[in-house]
């Protein structure tokens, strides 16, 4: 059935070359865990991406119930956690996944560093990787406020006060982050907007570049 449907579409649109271009590529022997188990460290990048995908999915679903508003944010999160079917699981996926993305991304970075894969001509891709790292850290910072509980509120108070200590531009950065003088309604809505609209857009573009470059340049040679 599946094969017939695929053939029917392929007959008309000739889609096979499209995905074959993406899927068919040589996996060098030194990155294949089947040859040498220690090559599993080359999987860290892909695993980071896998977790990013689950973050996007669980985040989309959490947005079905979450409200970024002073009066409703906390109660809507409590509703998700305590009342919605498997709500604690979906929230848990997003909560634990957030830490896992950062851990996996860091391990991936260490692998690239210690195998020297960042060297020219792949140095540009390292730069894009560092940008992704920054985007993910901002993801963590903005997402931390959204449950709107004491921990979220005071962590953001500390974070924005740290921004305040930057010489000269600090106070302006803090005002922009907080959206005014008081950490409150406007802070929550802007952190939400950054977390669910701006950062995913930036992340997808950067990931696209990251993957395009590694495909174009190929995986770095063995040590």
């Amino acid at each position, binding site marked *: 059935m599946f094969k017939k449907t695929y053939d029917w579409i392929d007959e008309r649109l000739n889609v096979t070359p499209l995905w074959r271009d993406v899927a068919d590529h040589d996996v060098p022997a030194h990155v294949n865990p089947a040859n040498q188990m220690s090559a599993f460290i080359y999987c860290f990048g892909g695993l980071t991406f896998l977790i990013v995908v689950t973050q996007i999915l*669980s985040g989309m*679903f959490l947005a*079905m119930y979450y409200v970024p508003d002073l009066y409703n944010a906390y109660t809507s999160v409590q509703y998700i956690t305590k009342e919605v079917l*498997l709500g604690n699981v979906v929230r848990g996926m997003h909560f634990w996944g957030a830490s896992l993305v950062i851990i996996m991304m860091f391990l991936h970075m260490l692998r690239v560093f210690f195998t020297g894969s960042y060297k020219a001509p792949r140095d540009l891709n390292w730069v894009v990787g560092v940008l992704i790292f920054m985007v993910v850290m901002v993801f963590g910072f903005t997402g931390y406020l959204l449950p709107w509980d004491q921990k979220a509120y005071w962590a953001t108070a500390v974070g924005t006060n740290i921004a305040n200590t930057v010489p000269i531009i600090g106070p302006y950065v803090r005002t922009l982050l907080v959206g005014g003088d008081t950490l409150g309604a406007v802070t929550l809505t802007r952190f939400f907007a950054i977390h669910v609209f701006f950062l995913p857009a930036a992340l997808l573009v950067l990931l696209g570049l990251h993957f395009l470059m590694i495909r174009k340049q190929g995986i770095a040679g063995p040590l």
Partner: protein
Amino acid sequence: MGVSVSYTDKQKGLTRRQFLTYALGGTGAFMAVAAVGPLIPFAVDPLTRGTTETFSTVGTESEFNTSYPLAKDFTLKQKDGWIQVDNTYTAFIIKQQDGTYLAMSNICTHLGCAVSQQLGSDGKPTAFSNGIWFQCPCHGSQFSLTGVQTPVSPAQRPLDIFLTKVDSTGQVLVGSKKHQRTV
């Protein structure tokens, strides 16, 4: 490097390529289900919540009779996601010939004003005239004892009704949702 494969004699069992395809597909499917599995119940959660119709006590059976409708205020808790609100309604309640109760909303079915009753000198509701029991102050809709609009009323349907029931101790209860009648 040509390896000639004869398609005429069927190979026994799985080929290496088939096995790897199934193993890869199976692992991929398992991972996809693990990730997406909890999301589906999460999204269809509203289906697991039944009707939110709740009932509130408005009085004992002996309070009501078949000759005039009695105005009663009642409050019902409404649960809307994480929001709980107390809604206050007014209903005109009259006992019907078959012993059941008719609870009519006081909201005019024309444009939503509160219809009024007239109280007699004895403090009991009485008809205005000619079987008109309810009148709307806004555009003059008139309704009969059972809430049916007169032909000249701007209101196009009878007063909406609440579900009613009587519990084992003789208390009359009224439901939380208005239902339209089409007379």
